[in-house]
Each structure stands twice: as structure tokens, then as C-alpha cells.
């Protein structure tokens, strides 16, 4: 019985693909601009399972942007066509993600895809859309490989994972240039599993390139009962700059130990993980002051529209926007911009328009990037991260300089421990 159903579906699918090739894509929401009333956008997200809360956050970002775009008159070059989000639940599972992507493309005939939050789902589902030549805009997933497979239909807004180590160093270098306190000696302190080790690989390239010297390379097991040995090692190396890749408990132990041993560095820079965990600030208290953390987005970002958009979001959903919501929101504007320039809902035309994207202002630009522009591989070359500094228990955006919180002045170098109250 089951086999029979399978066979029938298969025949059905074959007929559908057959139709598609015969009529040259006109069944995809119509090839001519005149008859288009709405453009269907497939949104693949983990809407159930362990990561469902983050999937929901992405969905909210997409919905808010879509409402705004439609309220502003839709896609004007398509006679005011409205955007329609077609949600599919990946359950956070790559296999489900692939079959759902297939369903969105084949059955629902979406013109563009977006999603899928987790790199592990984005990676195979972009492969599906590549096969069917449907453009896929990736707002969040950071795994490097996603845009390194020579795909033509995958476009990523977010920075790559390896850019985290790059931007930590870039920030320190620019702070040195700006203030005259130039860091030279760098200590690398990282947990010794694959996350930390891939960071270290990045640092080993970016630190020497920035003209700094690595004076300490200190991997450690994140489940250590005592990190004093690592802290003493940092003390002996006497670095100007300490770069971390840490989980929560080790970030707590390291920060407290560095305060105890009064290790004075110009800057101590984390990259999310433990340093971004609210538990971290709660547990280390004052010892976290003047520390930096690299992150995707922050509601205090000094860019036009951020405050207003965040207020709208908060009014609608009761919480502040976060990085995932902001990136998903911006991705809808990237899609709308491409549709506008394409003047068509045909996937091929949309792809061509996406490849020529150059957005520097407008409602979608609530991200810290200067502009959105994709290279040959589909990667947004201007994607960047932001740096926040902890002061009085608050995280304030300090970098990139043109997106900083205008009400906050960065403290660099950090005051000596003995000078702190």
C-alpha cells in the first residue's frame, strides 16, 4: 500500500517537473510581470524541537519585514505584488530540511527560499535549491562551507564563522591606531575542542598579519576544576591583548582569576559563547568591566532605523530584537530589493538581480554592515560583526566605529586593576 502511494507521488512529481521544463518556468508565479499578484517566499526554519525558540525569533523578523514591505505598497515594478511567506518546519533536522525544501520548491512553487538558521540544515537545503535553480537567501547560518561550494543560487548575508577571529584582531588594531595605545603582545586563550581550535587557526593567521606577536598559545579543557595554572601562564607572558574562546564556566573562572592576579592588558576580547551568556555577567560582576565581546547585533547599534525597528518589534512580540531576528528581517528587504530590480518573479531573473545587489541604506540596513553586496560565491563581502564593551554591567556597541552607540565612549586601554574602585 505504502509503496503504491510512493509510486503515485513519484509519478506526480515527475509530471510536475516535466511541466516545469516544458513551459519554461512560467508556472512559477508567472513569468510576465503583469499577472503577478503575489510572490511566494519559502521560509524554512526549525519551528519545533530543541531550537524552536530561535526558529520562532527568525520567523518574527521575517514577518515584521514582510508586513512593512507589503504595507508600503509591495513590489512596485510588479504592479504592487505582495510578498507571501510560506513557512516550513525543518524540525532542526537536515533530512527533514531537505525534503521540506523540495516540497516548497516543487509543490508550493516558491520563487525564492530563505532560512534555515542552523548551518547543518542550511548546508543540505541550499543544495536542493541549487538543483532546482531557485535562489536561496541565507540570513544567519555562519558555517564557512555554505558559500564555498561554487553555488550560483546561494546568497549569504551573515559573516562566516572564521571571520570572528579576524574581527577580534581587526578591532584591536583599529583601537590601537585610534588611541595610540597599540597592542603588540597577544595571548590566545581558548577551550581545546573544535570551536577553540578553529579560532586558534584563524588567530594564527590574523594576528601576525596585523603586525602583532603571539606571546602565548594556551588551550585548556573547558571542564577544568581550576584554571589558575592558565592564568599564571598569562601573567608570565604579560600580554597587551588577550583573545578568548570560552564557554560559560571557564569564562567565569578565567575572568575572576585574571582580576585576582591583577593582569593588566589593554583589552580582553571574547567571541560570544560564555562571554555572551547572561550568567557570566551575573557571576563575575565587576571583574567583567571594560571587557569586550564580539557579537552579531545589539539593540543599541548606532545606525538609522535600529531604534524604531526594535521598538516596533518589541511592541509586537514583547521582547527586544536579537541578531537572528535582525538578520532575518534584513534578508526580506534584500529579497524585496532584488524583486524590485528584476521586475519579475522568475527565479532566474531574481538570481541575476540578487547577484547585483548593492544596498547601502534604507529600512533593511539595521545591520552593522556598511553595505550588502554579494561576491561570486554568494557571500556578502561587507558582512561584519560588532564589538560590545561591558561598562556598569551594560553591554554597549563600540565598533565598527560608524555603527557604535553614540551615547557611549569606548575605554581603551582598560584601566589598571589597582586604579579601579
Amino acid at each position, binding site marked *: 500500500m505504502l509503496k503504491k502511494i510512493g509510486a503515485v507521488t513519484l509519478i506526480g512529481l515527475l509530471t510536475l517537473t516535466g511541466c516545469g521544463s516544458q513551459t519554461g518556468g512560467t508556472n512559477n508565479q508567472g513569468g510576465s510581470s503583469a499577472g503577478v499578484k503575489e510572490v511566494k517566499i519559502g521560509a524554512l526554519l526549525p519551528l519545533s524541537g530543541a531550537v524552536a525558540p530561535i526558529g520562532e525569533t527568525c520567523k518574527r523578523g521575517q514577518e515584521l519585514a514582510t508586513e512593512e514591505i507589503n504595507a508600503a505598497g509591495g513590489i512596485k515594478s510588479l504592479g504592487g505584488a505582495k510578498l507571501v511567506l510560506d513557512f516550513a518546519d525543518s524540525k532542526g533536522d537536515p533530512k527533514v530540511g531537505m525534503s521540506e525544501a523540495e516540497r516548497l520548491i516543487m509543490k508550493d512553487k516558491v520563487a525564492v527560499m530563505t532560512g534555515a538558521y542552523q548551518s547543518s540544515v542550511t548546508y543540505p537545503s541550499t543544495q536542493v535549491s541549487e538543483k532546482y535553480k531557485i535562489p536561496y537567501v541565507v540570513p544567519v547560518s555562519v558555517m564557512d562551507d555554505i558559500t564555498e561550494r561554487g553555488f550560483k543560487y546561494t546568497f549569504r548575508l551573515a559573516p562566516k564563522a572564521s571571520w570572528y577571529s579576524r574581527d577580534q584582531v581587526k578591532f584591536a588594531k583599529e583601537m590601537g591606531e585610534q588611541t595610540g595605545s597599540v597592542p603588540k603582545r597577544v595571548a590566545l586563550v581558548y577551550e581545546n575542542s573544535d570551536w577553540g581550535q578553529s579560532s586558534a587557526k584563524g588567530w594564527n593567521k590574523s594576528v601576525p598579519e596585523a603586525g602583532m606577536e603571539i606571546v602565548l598559545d594556551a*588551550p585548556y579543557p573547558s571542564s577544568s576544576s581550576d584554571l589558575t595554572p592558565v592564568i599564571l*601562564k598569562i601573567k608570565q607572558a604579560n600580554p597587551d591583548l588577550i583573545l578568548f574562546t570560552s564557554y560559560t564556566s571557564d569564562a567565569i573562572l578565567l575572568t575572576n582569576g585574571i582580576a585576582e592576579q591583577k593582569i593588566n592588558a589593554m583589552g580582553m576580547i571574547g567571541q560570544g559563547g560564555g562571554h555572551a551568556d547572561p550568567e557570566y555577567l551575573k557571576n563575575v560582576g565587576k571583574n567583567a568591566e571594560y571587557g569586550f565581546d564580539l557579537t552579531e547585533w545589539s539593540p543599541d547599534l548606532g545606525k538609522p532605523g535600529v531604534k524604531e525597528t526594535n521598538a516596533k518589534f518589541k511592541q509586537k512580540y514583547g521582547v527586544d530584537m536579537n541578531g537572528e531576528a535582525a538578520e532575518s528581517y534584513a534578508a526580506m528587504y534584500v529579497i524585496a530589493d532584488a524583486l524590485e530590480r528584476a521586475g519579475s518573479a522568475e527565479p532566474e531573473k531574481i538570481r541575476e538581480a540578487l547577484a547585483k545587489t548593492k544596498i547601502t541604506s534604507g529600512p533593511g540596513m539595521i545591520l552593522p554592515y556598511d553595505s550588502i553586496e554579494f561576491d561570486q560565491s554568494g557571500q556578502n563581502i561587507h558582512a561584519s560583526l560588532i564589538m560590545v564593551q561591558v561598562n556598569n554591567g551594560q553591554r554597549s556597541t563600540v565598533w565598527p566605529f560608524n555603527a557604535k552607540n553614540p551615547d557611549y565612549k569606548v575605554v581603551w586601554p582598560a584601566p589598571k586593576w589597582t586604579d579601579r574602585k
Partner: protein
Amino acid sequence: MQTLIAATLNGLFMGSLYGLIAVGLSLVFGVMKIINFAHGALVMVGMYAVFYMWSLIGLDPYLSLVVVVPVLFLFGYFLQGKVINPVLKREFGRNGHAVILLTVGLTLVLQNAALLFFGAYYKAAKTFVSGMTWDMGGVVTSVPRLIAGVVGAIVILGLQLMLSKTDLGKAIRATGQDREAAGLMGINDYKIYNIAFGLCLAILGIAAALMLPMYYVQPEAGKIFEMRSFVIAVLGGIGSLSGAFYGGLIVGLIESVTAQVWSATAAEMLIFVVFIGVLLYKPSGLLGK
């Protein structure tokens, strides 16, 4: 040089604390021949007890010992009497696997109960010694670690005196050496078991109070210390209290000094290399019989 001295001191202090935790494990094994897999979870229970005395009543962790130690002793006494002994009795004369499984089950119960009632959050007590340091000509030592090291050594010494000099101590040792012969001499062996387990919990209570000013508590906080305890107790000779103390010092020193001359990852490896080396050379451990 200064860092090396500081690292050595830190290794000795932490080692003494590790030794104190391992002593509880060694005592339970020495008397009852039970390998207690709930040891780490019981460390966590002690830490939560100390933490809540501090956060709810405002009692300093060191002062809270006055309350926490007797309470934990009673908790251990009844845990042994009501939960472990019945299984031990039924298992009498057999291999005793059920008791090991029981302690594993106990771990899961305690950890998940902590998760349920206290949440997965990291909780730390900020006391007057937290973050306090002592600077001796450039050798900076953390005061809570110094206190932990010194008090740990004193407690182990006191326990050893108690076991060798008092009647109760002699009864405990007799039960550990030959349970049936001790029974024939009029010693109530199950009651001794209760007391030994109670003592183990009391020791863990002290260790918890020493740790809290410099550490955090979380449902899995005891796990790392449990792993260390097993290595130390076996390294020093399981059942031997001074063996556990020296084992603790060795592990603490390796951990702290190796990280200076090599790396923290290497330290983790070296501890187990030494462990395997000692077992190959002397299977009963350094001071084991």
C-alpha cells in the same frame, strides 16, 4: 620564577582540597568496600547547602559549617541506613553490583532534582575573601585557596587522629578490616556503616564550604571533582587516608606546574600517565596494602 612559585603553591593548595574530597571516597570504600559513584553529586549537594545558607540567611560559607556539617552528617547517616544498607543486606555474600548501580541511580536523582529545583544556572557566593589575594614579593596567592589548602590538610589530619585514637575510630577501622570479626567483638557493623557514610558527607560539607568562595555551584559542578577523586583515591591507595592526601598533592602539583612549563591540555594527559604508571608499578596504589 615567581610564577613558578605561585603555581607550586596553588598546586599544593588545590591538591590538599582534592585530597580532602578524595578522603571521603576512600573512607567509604575502606569501610564498606563500596565504590560510591554518587560522590560528585554529594559534593554538589554540599555546595548547594552552603550556597543557600549564604544566599537565604546570609551566613558566611565558613561560618555555615556549624550548621551544614551536622546536617550533612545526618543526611549521610540516614541515606546509608535507609537506602544503601537494605540493598547491601540483600546483596550480602554476592558480588555487590546492585549497590554500585544504586549509587549511579542516586547521582541521577540528585542531579535532576537540583536541575528541577535550582535550575541549570551558575551560582556563586561573594564573601569577604572572594577575590582576595596575598602578595608576597610578586608571588600572588589567592586567599580562599590558601584557606582551603590549610584547612583541608588539618581536617585530614584530624580525621586520621580520630580513626587511630578514639574507640569509634578503632571500631570503624576494625569493621573495614574484617567485618565478621568486628561483629563478633560486639561492634554493630551496619551502624558503623551509617557513621562512616555520615562522616564522608560531613567531609564533603567542609570541602563545599571551602570551595564556594572561589567556585560556583551548578547541578553538574561535582562531576570534575568526582573524576579527580577517583584518580587520587586509587593513586594514593584506595582505603588509605594519607594516601588520598598525598595523591591529592601529586595531582594538584602536576595540574598546576605542567601548565606552566607545557600546557593545560598536557597536564590533563600527564595526570593519567602518572596514574597508569603508578598502577603498573604498584597496583594497590602508593600507600595501599
